[in-house]
């Protein structure tokens, strides 16, 4: 889009970054009567939730490749269905592959899942239902907290207290047993949590994997149970599924953000792509607008950043506007990514040894995991602690072209692969020189389960943590805009006392995943932030 200089006019609100949270925030601000101008650096909006063509005729969810349910109120308010969002829930949520040629298949329908698990262990089948129910009850309460603006620690406002009281009441309504569970589970290791319910190792590992996805934690790391609970909270489903609910949008994950963009536009947001921010202008401690790399200056009453906290406050703002102490703390905000993404264009569906017997195609519609046992995952983690990427990685695969055949030429497919662990910082090496090795490791690992995969590959797209940072603007390549951990959660996200979407700079706000709740593709951060920003600006 054009970057010719219009006569300098003062905009209402500028939103930096057109990721899903930026779009959600833009929508709610527009709804509240503001005229947001959303500036996206890349040629298309969507941030980490995009669909791109990476090989002629092959389109893939470049990064995020499936969604748990989006926040219901957001889908409703933004009328995403009317704006073209079509979500399908595959019959199989997760197929977990084992080296011995077996597979543990978890169906989206909890009852069906239990039947399948019963073939491994009657006890676990029952426990799976119990665990699901417990996660559902606890998740419901947590999701209330996720929708809250974290209270002000020093002087909680009456609103804060009311919100906490409401949550507090529903927490009490959990009853002793589940209340203690919340308190006990939060700091636990996912490996311990699943062991309290299941005996079957593959089931333990497959469920525990939810607690490590995207984080710098292993299944034995304390706090991985919290991540598991947070992701369960996002499900908010009638029949909760410990392995998680998987949904695919027609058109790939990018379809979600396209629908959001349409909704935001309709509500009155102006969206400009190819608009790269050089600097956030600050005068006397107040944000006054932005300067684009093109040199164009746009002034505004408020600036809202969908970029991560480090990028926003350490790179876009001149440090002289922040106290050294605050800068130190933001520097200490943990934001080291651990995942890489590999997208493959395939001439045909690979044959998974473990799934053939059960009818290959159907079982490939959900998520396919390589997480055969807890120790496998932990060993994968170990390597990353010392700055190497896992040689036997934890892998999560989807075939977007199965839920939407338009994404690849007839009979051909796209394969979307999350690989963990790929630490942002490599010990005595760099990602450019390791890119090829990374791709080979992933293909080799999967080939152990689908021997014919290599022959079907037409094209690799290998996205290293460094690419995540440089191409998609994720500092440290962290897909959650910062580690999801007890010390960076709720009132501590991104920093204790700065969890309310404001920053030390007046009229500069954060609305990305680096703010509460910041759990993946839910839109929660954007919606919460918009609520606070409207309050602040209407004062």
């Amino acid at each position, binding site marked *: 889009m054009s970057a010719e200089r219009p006569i300098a006019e003062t905009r209402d609100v500028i939103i930096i970054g057109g990721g899903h949270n930026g779009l959600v925030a833009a929508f709610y601000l527009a709804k509240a009567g503001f005229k947001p101008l959303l500036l996206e650096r890349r040629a298309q909006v969507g941030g980490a939730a995009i669909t791109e063509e990476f090989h002629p005729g092959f389109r893939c969810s470049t990064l995020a490749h499936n969604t748990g349910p989006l926040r219901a109120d957001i889908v409703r308010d933004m009328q995403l269905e009317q704006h073209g969002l079509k979500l399908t829930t595959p019959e199989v949520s997760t197929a977990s592959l084992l080296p011995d040629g077996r597979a543990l298949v978890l169906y989206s329908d909890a009852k069906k899942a239990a039947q399948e698990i019963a073939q491994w262990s009657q006890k676990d089948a029952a426990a799976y239902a119990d665990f699901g129910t417990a996660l559902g009850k606890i998740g419901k309460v947590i999701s209330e907290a996720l929708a809250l603006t974290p209270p002000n*620690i*020093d002087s909680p406002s009456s609103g804060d207290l009311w919100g906490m009281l409401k949550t507090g009441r529903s927490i*009490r309504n959990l009853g*002793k*047993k589940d*209340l*203690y569970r919340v*308190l*006990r*589970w*939060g*700091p*636990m290791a996912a490996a*311990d949590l699943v062991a*309290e319910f299941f005996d079957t190792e593959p089931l333990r590992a497959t469920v525990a994997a939810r607690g490590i996805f995207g984080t710098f*934690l292993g299944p*034995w*790391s*304390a*706090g991985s149970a919290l991540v598991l609970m947070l992701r369960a909270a996002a499900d908010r489903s009638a029949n909760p599924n410990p392995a998680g609910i998987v949904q695919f949008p027609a058109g790939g994950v990018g379809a979600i953000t396209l629908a959001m963009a349409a909704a935001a536009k309709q509500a009155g947001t102006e969206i400009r792509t190819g608009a790269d921010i050089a600097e956030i202008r600050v005068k006397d401690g107040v944000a006054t607008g932005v300067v684009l790399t093109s040199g164009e200056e746009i002034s505004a009453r408020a600036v809202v950043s969908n970029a991560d906290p480090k990028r926003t406050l350490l790179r876009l703002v001149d440090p002289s506007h922040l106290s050294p*102490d605050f800068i130190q*703390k933001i520097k*200490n905000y*943990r934001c080291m990514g651990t995942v890489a993404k590999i997208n493959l264009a395939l001439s045909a569906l690979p044959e998974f040894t473990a799934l053939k017997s059960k009818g290959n195609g159907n079982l490939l519609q959900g998520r396919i995991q390589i997480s055969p046992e807890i*120790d496998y995952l*932990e060993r994968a983690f*170990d390597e990353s*602690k*010392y700055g190497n990427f896992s040689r036997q990685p934890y892998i999560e695969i989807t075939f977007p072209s199965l839920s939407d055949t338009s994404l690849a030429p007839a009979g051909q497919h796209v394969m979307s692969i999350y690989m963990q662990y790929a630490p942002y910082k490599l010990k005595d090496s760099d990602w450019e020189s390791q890119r090829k090795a990374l791709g080979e490791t992933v293909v080799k690992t999967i080939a152990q389960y689908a021997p014919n995969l290599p022959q079907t590959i037409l094209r690799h797209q290998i996205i290293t943590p460094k690419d995540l940072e440089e191409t998609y603007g994720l500092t440290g390549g962290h897909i959650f805009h910062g580690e999801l*951990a*007890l*010390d960076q959660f709720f009132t*501590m996200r991104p*920093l*204790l*006392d700065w969890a309310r979407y404001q920053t030390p700079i007046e009229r500069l706000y954060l609305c990305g995943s680096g703010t509460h709740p910041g759990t993946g593709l839910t839109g929660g951060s954007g919606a919460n932030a918009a609520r606070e920003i409207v309050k602040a600006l209407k004062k």
Partner: protein
Amino acid sequence: MPAVSSSTKYDVIVIGGGHNGLTNAAYLANAGKKVLVLERRHVLGGAACTEEVFPGFKFSVCSYVVSLLRPEIIRDLDLPRHGLEILPLDGTFTPMPNGDHLWRVNDHGKTRREIARHSRVDAEAYDEFGKAMQAMCRFVKPILSMIPPDPATLNPKELMKLLFIGRRFQGMSSEDKYNQVQLMTMSAIDFLDQWFETDVLKATMSASGIIGTFLGVRSPGTAYVLLHHYMGEIDGAFRAWGFARGGTGAISNAIADAAREAGAEIRTEAPIARIMVTNGRATGVVLSNGDELYADVVSSSVDPRLTFTKMIEPGNLPGEFMDGVKRYKFRGSSGKVNMALDGLPNFKCMPGVGAHLRGAMSISPSVEYMEKAYDDAKYGHWSSHPYIDMVIPTLTDTSLAPPGKHILSCFVQYAPYKLAPGLDWDTEKEKFGDNVVNTIAEYAPNIKNIILHRQVVTPLDLEREWGLTEGNIFQGELSLEQLFFLRPVAGWAQFRSPIKNLYMCGSATHPGGGIMGAPGRLAALEILKDGAA
């Protein structure tokens, strides 16, 4: 020992003569109760004992340094009068493979200069860090002397307690709040990374974060354990880490002496078969020799697994409580190697006899070294390159060994209780010991030539001989989900149990392990409050 008549009736029978059991007994006896302490072993003190393992050599077999012993207990029981004397343990010496070293001592200026040798920035940060930790301890200490509230009740008294903590938290500067929250949630290394850049400094400091736990220095939650051990290092000289004259057993003996003076009766070699329960109420104990002893209250200082699964007949406890007991994590991760020496170790990086031998010597050369030691343990192997914390008490207390001879006491981590399939501790025991000697020899080669005797204590030994389930020295992991109102079982953190008049008073209750005595004291106060005895 007095002949036992089954008619004898006590107000309180305390199970286990460890420092917590004895503290519990002393407080109850001081309150005029008729108290009987029953210890299974021939010596008192549990894991806080001194034993002449080899002729002339008195080892602090398990616990070997003291720091956390609550001041109010020292005061209330007048322990110095009963023979408690704490000798200072000055500093921590960390030899490095590259021939350098890090030597921190109590002398502030010296330590600063030493750290500055490695990094000027860290020397500055070290002061700040000390101050910050002090503030954190000020916040946590009152909690150590507090009965954990029950967040699940609506009882206003309980909510007041929560409010009290909330208010104390409110009272802190936002800087302190920030640190406190991080300490409660972060890993020792993530926390230290924010302060320091020197790897060896972070490694050796992070060691306090893993002692006795089955966690690595990078595991979230270890920052709290760091604080737990820092507590002692903070206030003045006396409370700094030190030795008890006569070995760690002297602490238990002083407490036992105070208890006896107050009228408590203490029996050793009196193992308990079971706790008698009638109509949901504890009425006494049965010794393994068949003797029945009756009491209004039974107070158990052994861990919940022993108390509730071994000593109580099934069916007396609600299933949910038993689930909690079964879930409670022990996972011993450490061992001890005690040596009788014919001389003193000679460190390559600091040859000769010097003050560095009088403090703690820590084999913790790098963060990666520490974390890799943990990786071995995760998969069921003792660390090929373990973290070792060594002291030579005989340089401070000559009464422990013959003239010219010395004792080297080594705390070793990791030594996982559960070994990989095909391995067992009885066959690994001496290999484990050899590896410790070899590891030390990398830094002080002469060690091999001066060993007269060697005693290896594995987690399995700790379980068999000292009744520490799975060899956990704290009677259960000090992990966040097992602290405060969750220790040992959610809803049962107030020293009571589902069985009326059966109380818990050991390290498995709040505030947990270390020679602190707090659980024993707090439990006694609750027993008296209930007027149960």
